[in-house]
């Protein structure tokens, strides 16, 4: 399979995801209005912005949970808008982690993580169990295999959600505000898991307001508002001299609201 490569600085980077002029409407409301960006292999991209900016919709357009009305998304060289009946298969190359976990309520932790490999990759139950156990170990949830989602804390649920995505061995992980529904004291364990994944050079696209996390691991940050990308750049750029007025105002508000989390997460990041 051919891949588009380009040389930047000293390292050769391979584009895994290319978002090209993606538009999404709901009725007459334009939610995403012509967004384009690339994601390099092994990097973490953080998308942030006010609620209603179209971040979650954009994320769902990337794995075609929502089909864009215009534009397209490439997974390496594959145009997902032209994937046809193979779309389900390509969608499995994106692991997705949800704000409200969306664990399968009627299944144990182990079954939740096994079902993807079993049903989609059609591997045997024994193999699927091995894969799932390995994924659960990665998020330090292997001791909870036999529990049901309702018996877990929010942080544990989200780590199982991450394991479920990992078990499919995806090329890209998509995070949709993974810590927004968590009690403050549970955010740390989820962020720690995400930091570990970033350090393992997993390719990740994260919609999040956790600026400590963004600072620690992201190579690219994207600020969205009203369906468009307002500003992109490195964390250094955003935290030292953001150029756009809207970006400055939003980052200012974030620091007021999330200032304490940010410090805590920097502490988490610093431990490594």
């Amino acid at each position, binding site marked *: 399979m051919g891949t588009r490569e380009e040389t930047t600085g000293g390292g050769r980077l391979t584009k895994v995801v290319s978002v090209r002029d993606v538009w999404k409407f709901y009725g007459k409301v334009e939610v995403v209005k012509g967004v384009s960006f690339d994601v390099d292999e092994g990097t973490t991209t953080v998308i942030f912005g006010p609620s209603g900016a179209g971040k979650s919709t954009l994320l*769902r357009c990337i*794995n075609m*949970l929502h089909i864009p009305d215009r534009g397209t998304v490439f997974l390496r060289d594959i145009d997902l808008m032209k994937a046809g009946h193979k779309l*389900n*298969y390509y*969608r*499995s*190359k*994106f*692991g*997705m982690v*949800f704000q*409200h*976990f*969306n*664990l*399968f*309520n*009627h299944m144990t932790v182990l079954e939740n993580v096994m*079902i*993807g490999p079993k*049903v*989609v990759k059609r591997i045997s139950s024994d193999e699927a169990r091995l894969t799932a156990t390995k994924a659960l170990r990665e998020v330090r949830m292997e001791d909870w295999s036999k529990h*049901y*989602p*309702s018996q877990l804390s929010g942080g544990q*649920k989200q780590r199982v959600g991450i394991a*479920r*995505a990992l078990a*499919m061995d995806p090329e890209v992980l*998509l995070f949709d505000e993974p810590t927004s529904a968590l009690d403050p004291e549970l955010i740390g364990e989820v962020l720690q898991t995400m930091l570990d994944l970033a350090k393992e050079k997993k390719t990740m696209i994260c919609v999040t307001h956790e600026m400590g996390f963004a600072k620690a691991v992201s190579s690219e940050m994207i600020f969205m508002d009203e369906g468009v990308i307002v500003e992109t750049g490195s964390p250094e750029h955003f935290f030292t001299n953001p150029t756009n007025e809207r970006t400055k105002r939003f980052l200012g508000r974030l620091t007021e609201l999330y200032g304490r989390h940010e410090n805590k997460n920097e502490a988490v990041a610093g431990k490594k």
Partner: protein
Amino acid sequence: MINYLGDLLEGLLVTFELSFTALGIGMILGLAAALARTYGRKTLSYIANAYIELIRGTPLTVQLFIIYFGLPVLGLLFSPTLSAIVALGINSGAYQAEYFRGAIESIGGGQMEAALSLGMSRTQAIRRIILPQAVRLALPSWSNEAAYLPKYSSVAFLVTVPELMARAKVVISENLRPLEVYLVVGLIYLITIASLSKVLDMLYEKYKFTVE
């Protein structure tokens, strides 16, 4: 009394045959209609909706008489028992559809999104994720339906099916003791339905889970 109890219990077996078969047919129709309404395209969803409204808006006896007395006019001739089973099944399906639809809606869209995001097709997601939850969640209201059916199935005696009520009528015409016989019939229904409810309650307790 002993001499007619055997007759009544034979009738009860026919009542069982009618209500359990109808419950099964109703479950298949109900699940199909509920899925069509929730996930089907416009036409399919419209057809399912029409079915549910049509059946819930007309009396069971009218539905039964159309099948037994009406359809032969068009050349479709069903035996009394088959007519009763078809009528009860179609009728129950419309009510079960509403129970299942409520259950599917309470599951929420996140479960479907999560299943699709793993690479499952919609059909796989419905079969593996949505249906198992919908059936479990619908079980308490579905128990109502299971408890109604043995009683509703008594309309079958109007088209000469030898079920419990029909047998009772025959017994009374012989011994002329309506009070005694109908009390016994009532008791038989009561015991049947109480045991059925108990079993379904136990099933529910065993398989219930919490929706996030």
